[in-house]
């Protein structure tokens, strides 16, 4: 088994009102970044897991997203591998 650190990005679906992003957008503009066009806020989830290979690790993380980590009504997700060597302790 190999060790993988998965990065899961859960993002508000396009078109969905993201009031948090709107508030940050407003804050950025009021700080002088007037070229800011849009801000969307999602979340990043990091999961350490053991898997046979990277495909299996990706499939497992995708299954987690479909089952619980993302709500298909309001959120999209993206899964990637950020580490597949030694366990990293923060």
């Amino acid at each position, binding site marked *: 088994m190999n060790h993988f650190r998965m990065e899961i990005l859960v993002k508000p679906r396009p078109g969905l*009102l993201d009031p948090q992003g709107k508030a940050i957008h407003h804050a950025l503009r009021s700080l002088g970044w007037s070229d800011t066009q849009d801000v969307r806020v999602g979340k990043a989830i990091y999961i350490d897991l053991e898997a046979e290979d990277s495909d299996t690790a990706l499939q497992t993380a995708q299954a987690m997203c479909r089952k*619980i980590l993302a*709500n298909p009504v309001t959120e999209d997700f993206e899964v990637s591998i950020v580490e597949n060597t030694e366990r990293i302790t923060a």
Partner: protein
Amino acid sequence: MRVGVVTFPGSNCDYDLYKAAQQIGAKVEFIWHRQKNLDGYDALMLPGGFSYGDYLRAGAIARISPVMEDIIGFAENGGPVLGICNGFQILCEAGLLPGSLVRNASLRFESKDIHVLVEQTDTPFTSEYQKGQILRMPIAHGEGNYEADDQLLEELEAEGRVVFRYVSSDGELSEEANPNGSKNSIAGLSNKSGNVLGMMPHPERAMEEILGSIDGVGVFLSLATNLSTVVL
């Protein structure tokens, strides 16, 4: 009439709900979220609160509680299930009700009295109301903004599944009367067969004059009336 009030870690309206169901003569019991086997209950209620701290998404972790499997089975067999506030969020996460509840458009936790229009009286929780009746009840939530795609909204409207809609005190639909930005001002909706109701406002906090409103009584009275007329 035996009513079960389901308590999750972080539920905080369970005692209010217990009292409300008791007020209309039900024998009420708390059901811990780990309990299996819900035999013998006539109705189940999921209270408001912040189950599992609302971590991940409101209701997302509560819906994998051991008790949920039996609640889903109970609902699928036509048993009356009421979810209020966090209970509504859990019912959506569990797939018993469609759509989802996201952060209030105001970005604020909204805690105040609001008005809703009764649009559907063909449910075990609203049969004692009149269609078009305006009710005053409190809300208290940060994530009550009902979200659904256009196709689902059309379906809900066509099937008459919007049970309560936010309106002004004189019954007008408006942006100001919609406290959280919900699509179509939806405050409460039912499943296809009508036995599952989810709502953001708190009828269990509008049960006595001294609390400012008795408009919530009808929800519990409807249930009592329906259960007493069910021939088993």
